[in-house]
C-alpha cells in the first residue's frame, strides 16, 4: 500500500509539474469531497469494531497509557523541533498530530494550511512509520512493549500491528489495537483544531 501511495504521489507531482495549474481551485473541491467520504468510511470501520469498547471495559484505563503517552511525547518532540528549527509551534504540532497516518495528515494540512507544510506532514509521518518498522523489534526487546506500540502511533491498529505482535507476546495486541484506534480517531480532530488555534 505504501508503494502504491508513493507512486500515486510521484505521478501527481510529475503531472502537476509538466501540466502547470489549469485545474486551479478545482483541486480544493476534489480534496474536500474525497476527504469527507474517506473520513465517513473510516468512521464506519472504527465504530463497527465493538471489541475495542469491550476491551476497554475489561482492561480499564491502563489501555490508555500508550495513547496518552504518545500524545504527550509527540507534543514534547514537536515543541523541541520548534525551538531547534525556529518553526512556528502550531505548525510542528499539527505535523506531529498525524501520529504516523501520513496520507490523511498530509492531505488535511495541505488543504487547511499550505502545500509546503502538507509536504512536511506527509514526509514526517512516512519517516515515523519507517522508524517504527525498523525500531519496534529492538525497542520491544530492550525497552518495553508499550513503548514500541507508542512509536507506531495511529498505525498500531493496522499496518504495524503484525510487527508489534511478532516482536512481543500476543497479549499486547489489545494495547496496540486500542491505542491505534484512539489515535486514528484523534488525527482528523486534533490536526484541524491545532491549525485553527
Amino acid at each position, binding site marked *: 500500500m505504501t508503494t502504491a501511495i508513493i507512486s*500515486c504521489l510521484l505521478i501527481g507531482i510529475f503531472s502537476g509539474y509538466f501540466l502547470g495549474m489549469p485545474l486551479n481551485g478545482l483541486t480544493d473541491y476534489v480534496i474536500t469531497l474525497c476527504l469527507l*467520504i474517506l473520513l465517513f468510511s*473510516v468512521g464506519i470501520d472504527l*465504530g463497527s469494531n465493538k471489541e475495542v469498547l469491550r476491551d476497554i471495559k475489561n482492561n480499564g484505563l491502563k489501555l490508555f497509557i500508550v495513547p496518552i503517552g504518545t500524545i504527550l511525547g509527540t507534543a*514534547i518532540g514537536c515543541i523541541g523541533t520548534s525551538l531547534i*528549527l525556529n*518553526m512556528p509551534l502550531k505548525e510542528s504540532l499539527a*505535523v506531529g498530530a498525524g501520529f504516523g497516518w501520513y496520507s490523511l495528515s498530509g492531505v488535511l494540512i495541505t488543504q487547511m494550511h499550505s502545500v509546503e507544510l502538507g*509536504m512536511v506532514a506527509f514526509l514526517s509521518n512516512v519517516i515515523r512509520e519507517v522508524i517504527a518498522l525498523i525500531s519496534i523489534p529492538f525497542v520491544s526487546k530492550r525497552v518495553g512493549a508499550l513503548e514500541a506500540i*507508542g512509536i507506531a502511533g495511529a498505525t498500531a491498529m493496522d499496518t504495524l500491528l503484525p510487527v508489534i505482535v511478532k516482536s512481543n507476546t500476543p497479549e499486547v495486541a489489545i494495547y496496540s489495537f486500542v491505542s491505534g484506534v484512539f489515535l486514528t480517531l484523534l488525527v482528523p480532530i486534533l490536526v484541524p483544531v491545532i491549525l485553527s488555534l
Partner: protein
Amino acid sequence: MNILKFISHNSMYFYIAFILFGALIGYYEKVPVSIKRHNVKLQTLCLIVLILTIGFEIGSNGEVLSALGTIGLKAAVISILSVLGTVFCISITVEVFSKKGMKNS
C-alpha cells in the same frame, strides 16, 4: 458548487462531524449494505484520488519543489524527536504505574 464552497471554507467542522457520524452508525449497525460491502474499495479509491491531487498541487507549486531540503529537514526532526518523546513519556508512565502496583500488592 456553492455548497461545496461553503463546506471547503468550514471544512474542519465537517471532517470532525463526518468521522464521528460514521463511527456512530457503524456502532449502531445502521450502515447501508451497499456502503458496508464496498467500504474498503471506497477508502482505497478516495485515497488514490486524494494522493494524486495532492501530488498535482505539489508538482505545480514551484516554491515547494525548491524548498524540498528544508521540508525534509523539518520532517525528519519532527518525527525523530516525536518518537524519542513518545518512548520517554510511556517509559515514565509505566514506571510510575508499576511502582504503584508494587505498593498495593
